């Protein structure tokens, strides 16, 4: 049973993707059932493995390709954290997407690639060796590109082109680094760190820099982040799942893997590789928030805020010490929940009320109470207002920074929280406490189909729940500390 | 000259080498395709002459039969290629009224 589980987890999205690809456009009902069914099944499997990994069971599967190249799928605690998040959000986004796209063209193609992309994300989480990680990392690019250009109009094609341009170069750099390392140390597995001592100090540093540079593209760290705001041209469900959860998190997850499972904490400290990374992350945090401040279009603002939020994870991972790591890992989940709520809400506003820019938000609270409630909860969470999720991760990151002997981290966190407040609060204020123009009246009274509103509300509750119930063992925080505990005291 | 001294076999082999040189000169110099095809045939017969001459074993016992067989095969293959080249050249002349291959943009003919 222990080696069947990874295969089952992988097959869920793959099988549904293949079936949906060959479905006719018309049989809407069949497609929806497959979509929902497979995501529920996967969520169940994740729960099952959650309990298993908790007990210390190791699930592993090895597919031998050819001399020196094999695929290793391994479920460890870190993988499960990412899978749990992605499966839950996949279910929610599927519901949202089905409602959002009701009646539009070539949906078989969309949902086919949608499931393929989830398959790639699962692969990234489960991969037990560096080359398997690269395998799915590339597959993710290929499966997300058709989603970005789904609408086929000029902006989304331009967005697709830049997205490809950045990611292709990034993957070339990543492949070069991986092969350079594996050229001397042989295939690299996460469970047994490779004998990096064969490589000279500078070579190790150079490889680390290249690896991080390759992953930085998807993590949207400053110099290589501009594809993310441009990719907002894609339809809402795409931006929600992919750019708030799958694509961006894959990069961050990769960096975490490299730091903890390839190099290891002590080698990082010995070659002081962590500091430059932390600096880059901090710069991104500040820069992202500043840019978000200047935006008028809601979705671009959210995109820039994603750019800065993801770097929290990188910051957490790059600082030595357990607390920072816990902060980084837990933020991986929290940021996902919060950001997806914001994107859902923004999508509903744009779809139902044609609200795109910040100025149009006036008085929207009265007309779209539930959506705006979810939006506000998530926004406050991002700012770091207790007891929401954002506060928990920022709190741990702060302590971690102190513990690692880098007090300036506190400054960065504080500054970014202030900036978050600076661009979110006026939005919330305008939505709830100002009188909107009467032009909004002619929309029919109802806020929108429940299937469109419900996802945002559910994820908002999750943000609240995760923050409040942080103490539980199976909460993201609990799970993150379990990971760190296994990491530091093997 | 070192090697086999100047017996007739070596003489013919050297003639073959010079023929190849002449043929290559013709193949490069001329733009008119019919002359290049002619040069191609000169080179071919030069190569075969050299092949046969190198297989010549003294006046009495003739040339090594394996090269002879290969040369006969080679001559027939050369004829087939020449026939196709000539047919293509005539068709090119009929289509485009030219018998040379100026190095301009590749053919604009659409497929099918």
């Amino acid at each position: 049973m222990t080696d069947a589980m990874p295969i089952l987890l992988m097959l869920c999205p793959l099988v549904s993707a293949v079936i949906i690809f060959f479905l006719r456009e018309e049989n809407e009902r069949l497609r929806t059932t497959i979509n929902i069914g497979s995501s529920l099944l996967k969520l169940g499997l994740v729960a099952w493995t959650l309990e298993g990994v908790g007990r210390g069971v190791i699930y592993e599967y090895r597919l031998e390709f050819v001399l020196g190249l094999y695929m290793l799928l391994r479920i460890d605690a870190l993988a499960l954290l990412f899978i749990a998040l992605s499966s839950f959000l996949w279910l929610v986004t599927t519901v949202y997407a089905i409602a959002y796209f009701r009646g539009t063209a070539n949906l078989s193609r969309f949902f086919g690639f949608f499931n393929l992309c989830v398959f790639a994300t699962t692969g990234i989480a489960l991969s037990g060796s560096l080359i398997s990680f690269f395998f799915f990392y590339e597959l993710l690019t290929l499966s997300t590109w058709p989603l970005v250009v789904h609408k086929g109009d000029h902006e989304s094609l331009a967005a697709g082109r830049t997205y490809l341009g950045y990611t292709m170069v990034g993957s070339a750099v990543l492949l070069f680094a991986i092969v350079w390392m594996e050229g001397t140390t042989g295939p690299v597995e996460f469970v047994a760190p490779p004998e990096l001592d064969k490589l000279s100090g500078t070579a190790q540093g150079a490889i680390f820099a290249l690896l991080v540079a390759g992953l930085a593209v998807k993590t949207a760290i400053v110099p290589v982040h501009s594809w993310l705001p441009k990719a907002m041209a894609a339809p809402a469900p795409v931006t929600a799942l992919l750019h708030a959860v799958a694509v961006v998190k894959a990069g961050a997850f990769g960096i975490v893997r490299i730091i903890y499972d390839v190099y290891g904490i002590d080698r990082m400290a010995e070659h002081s590789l962590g500091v430059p990374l932390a600096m880059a992350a901090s710069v991104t945090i500040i820069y992202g928030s500043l840019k978000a401040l200047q935006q008028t279009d809601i979705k671009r603002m959210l995109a820039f805020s994603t750019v800065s939020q993801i770097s929290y994870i990188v910051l957490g991972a790059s600082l030595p010490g357990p607390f920072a790591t816990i902060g980084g890992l837990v933020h991986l989940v929290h940021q996902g929940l919060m950001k997806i709520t914001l994107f859902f809400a923004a999508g509903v506003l744009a779809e139902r009320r044609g609200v795109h820019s910040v100025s149009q938000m006036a008085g929207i609270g009265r007309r779209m109470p539930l959506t705006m409630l979810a939006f506000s909860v998530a926004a406050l969470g991002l700012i770091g207002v207790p007891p929401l999720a954002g506060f928990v991760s920022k709190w741990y990151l702060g302590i971690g920074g102190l513990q690692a002997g880098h007090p300036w981290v506190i400054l960065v966190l504080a500054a970014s929280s202030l900036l978050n407040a600076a661009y979110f609060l006026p939005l919330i204020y305008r939505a709830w406490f100002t009188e909107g123009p009467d032009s909004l009246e002619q929309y029919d009274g109802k806020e929108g189909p429940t299937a469109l509103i419900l996802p945002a509300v559910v994820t908002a509750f999750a943000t609240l729940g995760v923050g409040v119930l942080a103490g539980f063992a199976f909460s993201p925080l609990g799970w993150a500390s379990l990971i760190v505990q296994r990491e530091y005291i093997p | 000259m070192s090697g086999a001294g100047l017996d007739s076999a070596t003489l013919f082999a050297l003639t073959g080498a010079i023929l190849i040189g002449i043929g290559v000169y013709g193949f490069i110099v001329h733009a008119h395709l019919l002359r290049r095809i002619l040069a191609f045939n000169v080179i071919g017969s030069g190569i075969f002459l050299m092949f046969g001459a190198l297989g010549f074993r003294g006046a009495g016992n003739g040339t090594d039969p394996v090269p002879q067989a290969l040369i006969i095969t080679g001559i027939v293959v050369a004829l087939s290629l020449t026939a196709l080249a000539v047919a293509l050249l005539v068709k090119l002349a009929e289509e485009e009224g030219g018998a040379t291959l100026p190095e301009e943009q590749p053919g604009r003919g659409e497929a099918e």
Partner: protein
Amino acid sequence: MTAALLFDAGLCLLVLVVAFSAVAGRGLFGAIAFFIIYGMLIALAWLRLEGVDVALAEAAIGAGLTGMLLIGAWSMLKQLGVSGLPGGPSVPLRIAAGAVSGLVALALAATVLALPDGREGLSPAVAESLGRSGVDNPVTAVLLNFRAYDTLLESVVLLIALIAVWSLTPRAVWGGVPGLAQHARSDGVLSMFGRLLPPLGLVVAIYLVWAGSSQPGGAFQAGTVLAAVWLLVVMAGLYDEPPASSRNLRLALVAGPGVFLAVGAVGAAFGVFMGIPEGFAKPLILSIEFALTVSIAVTLALLVAGRPRRPA
């Protein structure tokens, strides 16, 4: 002995002069004429090298048919007005080409001279297995038994060359009669010549095939003679070429390679691909040779005639 060497030297010099004027000559038709003479001289050289089979092949196919192909092409190009180029190649190009070709010739000559002498090649091996090959002429033994696979592929090459030439036919004329219309006077010299030679040609061809097993000769040389006879008959206006779509023409084309392949396949079934059992090697080889001769004759004749041009 020096007299023979002197003759060879004279012959070689003549060959080189004729070759050079064929390649670098002024007019195109002159070049082709020189090329045909060059072919004859090369055949003479082969006689000096005692390669009689090759001499026959070179004279018949190398000089004869290739010459006819070139003359045919020249006449068609002349009608289209593209038979000559105004300016000759520029001087720097000539010098460069001269240098390159000189270099090539020198390198090859040096390599030839560097070869160790006293090389036996494969003649002892051929002599030793000649007895089991079913024929006495070593060249025919190599062609049709030891390296029969080469000859099979080569006969397919010839056939496919014809199909390739036919593939250039414009769609409107497909299935038509190959070559240009011949208009010779029915009572003229050519038609008399055309009536007189064919029987003799037929006898010579059959003799060549039959003798091929013991003396120089063989399918290819005989096929060429038959093709020449057929071309003469057509040019004399006595018969016209069969349309490309006629059934028995296709049968004749496929006969040679077909029989050859059949023998090979039967051999493969008994474990030795292309294996010719020693028991009845001679009759088998002869039957292959006769079939090949027919096919080669028809293919060569149609190759020289060119693609179908006139509706059937």
